[in-house]
């Protein structure tokens, strides 16, 4: 049995215990080949970790139902669709080399779900319109409508009762320097798979991941300070979608 035979058989071996002469040949090769042995142990680890992902920090069932109904409405899923599996049991040989990154798909979906969860579950106190005195929707009409930026001038919220007690709070739209975010467990796993399957791409994905994580952190910090800012909430959702996009691109490309 060659390395390439072993790699082709890995999905089936991981999914079900082989027996007979195939099993003994497979075991013999694994024992004698450190590369294949390492690959097998890595994949077993990834598969087991991926199975545990669903159990950690799972949003409420309502979030999943909302996503499912949206996907159904867009025709992306059907009710009778087969259950997704992390390790497909029968993948054509030609495409078999892709299977090991499939765990990224539920992770990407979970990211979007987490984004929706975070955005939708931020406490939103009653907030009056953030409207600068003297301006209205109509003031930009006319020809003199080149508007200059007014940096560091915070919006002037109407004094809601809850906010009167917080008058000493500093301007809310001044962004504090964002600390470089630590990669999460998902990110570590993601980078680990990239390292295994496409080592030359690790630095690129790591950089992009750091940028996307910084965007999420920055937006999240702003939303925490300005929970009534609907646009900022939407940007937080967008930032999570960017991260999901990164995972999806990796899913498509890592082989």
């Amino acid at each position: 049995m060659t390395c390439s035979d072993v790699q082709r058989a890995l999905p089936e071996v991981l999914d079900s215990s082989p027996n007979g002469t195939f099993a003994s040949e497979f075991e013999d090769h694994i024992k004698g080949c450190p590369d294949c042995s390492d690959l097998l142990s890595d994949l077993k680890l990834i598969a087991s970790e991926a199975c545990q992902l669903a159990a950690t920090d799972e949003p409420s069932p309502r979030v999943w139902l909302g996503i499912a109904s949206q996907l159904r409405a867009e025709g992306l899923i059907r009710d009778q669709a087969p259950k997704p599996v992390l390790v497909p049991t029968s993948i054509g040989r030609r495409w078999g080399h892709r299977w090991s990154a499939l765990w990224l798909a539920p992770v990407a979906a979970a990211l979007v779900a987490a984004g929706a969860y975070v955005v939708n579950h931020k406490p939103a106190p009653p907030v009056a319109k953030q409207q600068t005195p003297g301006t209205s929707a109509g003031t930009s009409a006319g020809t003199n409508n080149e508007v200059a930026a007014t940096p560091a001038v915070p919006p002037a919220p109407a004094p809601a009762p809850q906010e009167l007690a917080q008058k000493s709070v500093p301007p809310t739209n001044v962004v504090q320097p964002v600390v470089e975010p630590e990669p999460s467990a998902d990110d570590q796993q993601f980078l680990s798979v990239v390292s295994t399957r496409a080592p030359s791409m690790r630095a690129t994905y790591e950089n992009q991941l750091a940028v996307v994580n910084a965007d999420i952190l920055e937006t999240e910090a702003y939303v925490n300070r300005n929970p009534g800012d609907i646009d900022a909430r939407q940007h937080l959702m967008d930032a999570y979608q960017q991260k999901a996009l990164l995972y999806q691109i990796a899913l498509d490309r890592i082989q």
Partner: protein
Amino acid sequence: MAGLRRCDSFMVVAVVLASCFAPAAFAATKEYRYTVGPHANISVDTQCGAISIKPGSDNLVVVTAVFKSDNVEVDQQQNGNRIEIASHLLHGTDQQNGQVDYELEIPPDANVTLRSSTGPLSAERLQGDLTMEGADAVVTVRKIENAHVHVRTMRGSITLTDIRNGHVEIASISGDIHLKAVTGLSVQVSSGSGRIFYDGDFGSGGDYRFITHSGDIEALVPADVSAGFRAHSVLGRVQHDFPLQPRHSRFSEEVGRSFIGNAGQASSEVVLRSFSGKIRLKQR
């Protein structure tokens, strides 16, 4: 004289030897042909290499694959009206050594999916749906009508020109996005840190949404544009040099950070949103 002749001989021998021992630039070409019916589905997937698509005859797909190495194979299959082509690196080959460039001539109404990590990807003069994806691929799309155009990149820049009546969805993490004369019922564009530049008239009856996190957004429009605009940057600067009519909106306006208004009959809706990038609407 004899010395000169000897010198010439040495040079000839040297050139011959050099050409024998120099690394040969591998390039082999294969052509694949498929007969298809209307609205065929064609998918091309290469880990490294360019893919370009042009319209050809109505029922014939011609794929020319240019191999830059012998360490890569092409898997190709046709199932009815569906054609799948994919590069397959042989064991131990990295992406750089497994480049295959593809040129396709396809029926104009075919639906196409193209994937390449490095690109570039290009398509032109088609009427079928188009999906293009690539991490670092530079994507160029020209002269597409009445079709869905979906593009996703990680860092690659995206340029769309002359897209008429399209359903356009563009997403990039850090690539710049240029749209020139792009119109349609739905044009959704998003980039994280990349810049979005639009030059066009926003058509009629369309819904346009341009969103960035830190990238700038700039829209260049003619004086007779007919669109309702809403622009807002949470932390960035927003400006326009365009005479907008006031309009009622549930969104409030904040000087320097947002503007809301109509131009002409406001037949299209345009939303420009950024978290920290600058937004500018300019008259052409």
